[in-house]
């Protein structure tokens, strides 16, 4: 259960940013990523979070009136941060 993740897509980047803000406010781990290629050929932003936080996240989206597109559940753990990401984080 702990490694299962959710990918939420949005109609606008603004919604994705607000979703991230709302989750972070409640200290729920969330990361914005480009929409995974297998979900769409578009290039917007999606939010990735753990499946265990799904109900809480959906409730928050409703509470803050954040418009959502689709929710996908994934079996696998998300990709590890890249070398570049790790280097930039160290700065």
């Amino acid at each position: 259960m702990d490694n299962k993740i959710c990918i939420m897509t949005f109609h606008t980047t603004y919604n994705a940013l607000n979703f991230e803000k709302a989750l972070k406010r409640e200290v729920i781990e969330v990361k914005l990523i480009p929409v995974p290629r297998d979900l769409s050929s578009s290039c917007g932003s999606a939010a990735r979070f753990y499946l265990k936080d799904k109900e809480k996240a959906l409730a928050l989206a409703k509470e803050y009136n954040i418009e959502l597109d689709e929710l996908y559940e994934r079996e696998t753990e998300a990709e590890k941060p890249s070398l570049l990401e790790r280097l930039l984080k160290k700065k």
Partner: protein
Amino acid sequence: MSSRLQIILSGLMVGKLGTILVLFGNPVNMGVCVACFYRDIAGSVGLHQAGVVQYIRPEIIGFILGAFIISKMKGEFRVRGGSSPIIRFLLGFFLMIGALVFLGCPLRMILRLANGDLNAVTGLFGYVAGIFVGIQFIKQGFSLGRSVKQKPVGGYTMPLFAVVLLALLLLRPAFITFSTEGPGAAAAPIWMALGAGLLIGGVLQRTRLCTAGGFRDAILIKDYHFMWGLIAIFVANLAGNLIFNFEAFNLGFEGQPIAHTDHLWNFMGMTLVGLTAVLLGGCPLRQTILASEGDTDAIITVVGLVAGAAFAHNFGLASSPAGSTFNGQVAVMIGLAVTLGIAVLSTQTSVSMERGVKSNV
């Protein structure tokens, strides 16, 4: 294959093809330039009369047909649109003006950089500055509106356009003009340019590589997926230039091919490109790919690019190796003003992050 490896490989391929196309005849540092190539096409079909930049570039035909065929095969050809088409036309129009004042789209900027042209560094700063400004609007709620599913017929405009261009290129009717000198006359063989275009179009439909998306994601959501692809374009092109064409490598500002040293306007031109591209959600190359997989808003953007190119050469807005023109400088300022106006008016401030407050979306 991991998605990161895919994006790096597709970047390497674009960079490498950039080198090869120049070796076989394309203008220097212009192995692939989406803005320049639409400009050449506009001239060739008589939309402008700048004699040295008129040619139906097979690469563009390839991008369109490659992306169209792959999206059809993968069931991803979806016809949609209706997200502020006229605004997209204007943004595409001014994007082209900015690109022709700098002399290149963001992709050519990377290729110029990879051949030692330091004017492209000035352009890069401008490009990132433009994207940064655009991101501030996105953070405040900028959106051109949601696109909706449309009737399929409109989505075939782009592949049909490509087929017509291909016919004109091969049949060369009298009303089509091809440059006999200058950059427009420098071209790789048709089959090679077409093949490279098909490959790039197909691969980029799969990987979604975008020069605007790379910087946008890095700045806005701290995701470096697309940035890896951009770095790969630079590395592959730099390596190719150094290995296969070392004599042409020239580090510096002066004497760069199809470029000028007007620093302020290199910067401002690319600022306009960065700002319009991020508001559009993609650079000219990405817009071309989207247009080919059924996004009719992207088709309108491409029409804007072509119209912008025609205007740029009809009214003396485009720069030359001698530098930018006064008209071009005025046009860039008008473009920035119009684009900022569009950004302000398309930014919703009515959504509140307060709990329970109803949004007006």
